[in-house]
């Protein structure tokens, strides 16, 4: 009996010893199943479930903890003199989950797939400046651009630009084969998707043995699942819900500043907002501190109408206090001494929109801007209201500075929601892309943002700080934006 006990102890110790290095435990996370039955594992499809693809597949370049480019599948990169040609050196000895080797041909294939105009990929806009992708040798890739682009590595960090095996385009939506820290065991977008540790991951075996990514469409149900300990992480915690977590030692809350924003769009091509003085007046009336406190419980960073997030290296530091007198003067100058009437179209698609609109309504009234809130249905908001009505609410997720400025404000941008057309602004962006010196480039991006603060048709009061609820058993979860988290680092206590 005694001998048996000792041998049992030895066995237990031996198991504990090996378990130190072995991945162990299960990490569970929910996703919204936003694309319903069209959900897919193709990283560049509209229906991609990024909570899954980000663990299965790697990018060429990934953001480090400060959001700057750092090596992923590319270990180094360099540009030619005018930044129209970029050469990337690839990581040696990497294999895909199906055992095949990763090399330049896979990169050429994956990028060309994004660039294919027939492919309709929403990721295309991030890299559409690339005209040619070629393999110089098996471990070197050269990108040729149609324009000088000093920040090409930033574009390659896009969360959708993940490398898949050459020729796998037709099957990737269900196989999910990549080079990431986890391998697919079972894909079920509406139910539970199971991933297992990839022991051959190039950064070493991940910390957890198994991940379950569970589809829970209803936000309230996701919250209940977190509270009941059925999932380990949920990112949509509201300031009101926060108290439930702060009071408990079974959870902790991570605060992650993001570049996500909500705001108002005033179309610059219609009266009276075609007059830049009126646009400036409607922005001057906003008390951003009060809006942030009222709507988000103070979880955010004041933005002076710049779409560039607070952690972005190109963010312009500006100040924008409420100025009622200034707004009145500008309105009078523009010929509206009696004030103006504004119909703001608001849906509940974004739960904070109605509160934001009502708080702004009260602030604007002080300057003689009579805001009328028009409730519209969430269904069809993007197709029937946004970019159609004169004044609407809007929301955007974080994008790198260059991408945000281009996609939302460039004269020719398809998502130019305020119909903003300004040649001087377009020229600043073009110059910035061409400029290889970082400080000069930053100065140009800052100038462009300052130009927006003067003339834009968008009122951006703040950038949101995301609250992420995590169960206490999870350790080493990087407190950063989703696209930067190193999933292989996570461990869970049994």
């Amino acid at each position, binding site marked *: 009996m005694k001998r048996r006990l000792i041998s049992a102890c030895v066995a237990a110790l031996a198991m504990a010893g090996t378990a130190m290095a072995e991945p162990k435990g299960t990490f569970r996370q929910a996703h919204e199943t936003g694309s319903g039955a069209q959900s897919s594992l193709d990283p560049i499809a509209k229906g991609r479930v990024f909570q899954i693809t980000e663990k299965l597949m790697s990018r060429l370049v990934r953001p480090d903890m400060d959001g700057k480019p750092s090596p992923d599948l590319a270990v180094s990169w360099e540009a030619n003199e005018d930044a129209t040609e970029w050469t990337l050196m690839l990581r040696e000895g990497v294999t895909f989950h199906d055992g095949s080797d990763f090399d330049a041909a896979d990169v050429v294939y994956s990028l060309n797939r994004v660039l294919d105009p027939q492919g309709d990929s929403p990721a295309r806009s991030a890299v559409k400046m690339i005209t040619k992708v070629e393999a110089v040798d098996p471990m070197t890739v050269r990108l040729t651009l149609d324009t000088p682009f000093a920040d090409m590595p930033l574009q390659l960090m896009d969360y959708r630009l993940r490398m898949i095996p050459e020729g796998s385009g037709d099957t990737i939506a269900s196989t999910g084969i990549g080079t990431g820290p986890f391998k697919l065991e079972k894909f079920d977008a*509406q139910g539970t998707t199971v991933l297992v540790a990839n022991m051959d991951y190039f950064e070493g075996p991940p910390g957890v043995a198994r991940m379950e990514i569970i589809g829970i469409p*209803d936000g309230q*149900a996701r919250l*209940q*699942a977190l509270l009941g300990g*059925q999932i380990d992480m949920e990112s949509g915690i509201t300031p009101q819900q926060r108290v439930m977590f702060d009071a408990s030692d079974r959870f902790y809350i991570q605060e992650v500043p993001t570049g996500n924003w909500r705001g108002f769009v005033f179309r610059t091509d219609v009266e009276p907002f075609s007059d830049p003085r009126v646009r400036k007046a409607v922005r001057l009336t906003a008390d951003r501190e009060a809006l942030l406190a009222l709507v988000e419980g103070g979880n955010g960073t004041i933005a002076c109408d710049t779409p560039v997030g607070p952690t972005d290296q190109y963010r312009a530091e500006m100040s924008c206090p409420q100025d009622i007198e200034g707004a009145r003067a500008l309105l009078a100058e523009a010929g509206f001494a009696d004030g103006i009437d504004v119909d703001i179209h608001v849906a509940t698609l974004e739960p904070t929109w109605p509160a934001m609109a009502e708080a702004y309504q009260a602030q604007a009234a002080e300057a003689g801007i009579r805001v009328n809130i028009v409730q519209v*249905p969430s269904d069809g908001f993007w197709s029937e209201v946004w970019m159609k009505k004169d004044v609407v609410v809007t929301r955007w997720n974080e994008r790198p500075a260059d991408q945000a400025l281009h996609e939302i404000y460039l004269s020719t941008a*398809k*998502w130019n929601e305020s119909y903003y057309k300004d040649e001087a602004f377009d020229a600043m962006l073009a110059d910035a892309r061409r400029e290889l010196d970082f400080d000069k480039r930053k100065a140009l991006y800052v100038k462009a943002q300052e130009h927006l603060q003067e003339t834009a048709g968008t009122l951006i009061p703040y950038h949101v700080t995301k609250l992420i609820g995590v169960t206490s058993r999870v350790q080493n979860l990087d407190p950063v934006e989703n696209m930067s988290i190193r999933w292989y680092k996570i461990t869970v206590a049994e």
Partner: protein
Amino acid sequence: MLRMLVRRLALGAITVFLVSLIIFAGVEILPGDACTAFLEREAQGQLLENCRQELGLKRPASERYLEWAAGALTGDLGVSANGQKPISELVGYRLRNTLLLASCSMLVGVPLALLLGVVAALWRDRLADLAISTIAIGAMTIPEFVSATILILIFSVWLGWIPGIVLTSADAPVAEFFPEILLPMMVLTFVMTAHILRTVRSSVIEAMASDYAQMATLKGVPYWRIVFRHVLPNALLPAINVVALTIAWLLGGVVVIETVFNYPGLGRMMIDSISDRDLPVTQAIALIIASVYVGVNLAADLLTMIANPRLRTMHMRKG
């Protein structure tokens, strides 16, 4: 009897047809279509054009409805607009899951309701009746999502006994739904029991006050013999109709419960398909639910007739 059956079946078919027409029109009237719902902000230009072309949304609504109706008549429910999967495959498991939830709740709820209803009636205005009736009124008036949330809070968050949210896949074997199914089952049982027991209570009270029960009392028939031989068989007949309505409600009306508990049944699928503008799926589910309503009500009427000779002969004479 047979003629009556045929007539009822024909009426049922017309009802189902009207429902499908109303649902189709209703979803058509909503702003946006399957493509704008899926593409959201990218619903512009060529991308939108391609999507609409692919899903055949460019044809007039009437044409699409007729095509669907023709298919449905031959048993072909069509292909899901979004997933390009046959609908019978998608709906099959969801229907099974909803049936599972419904039958579990019925198995507990119906006997419980009958028992409590009879107890409340026989001990009318005493403590047992007051307690049962008060709780029943509470169960009927508290919205399901409130009682659901409270139960999750108690059993899942505070006590940690039962998982709060159903995370099992739609196509998992039945056994895997336990114990997750317990909380939604409890909520449904709670509401359902309240409805049935109130009907049972009042009809038992009525029967106890009837002439034949008083006659039996005067004749000196023992109390429990009156209850079991004379009162209950008559009093429980009206309950059949309530039970039937409840079955129909369980299959079609549990949308809220399924959403709150993330239960992969027909109700949640209906919600998802409406927000995706997936008309073929919405139509198929509406068809199923409408057929269940019609079918269950017909079955209940037949059952009542079989159990009650007076109704049977009356219909025979008329029909």
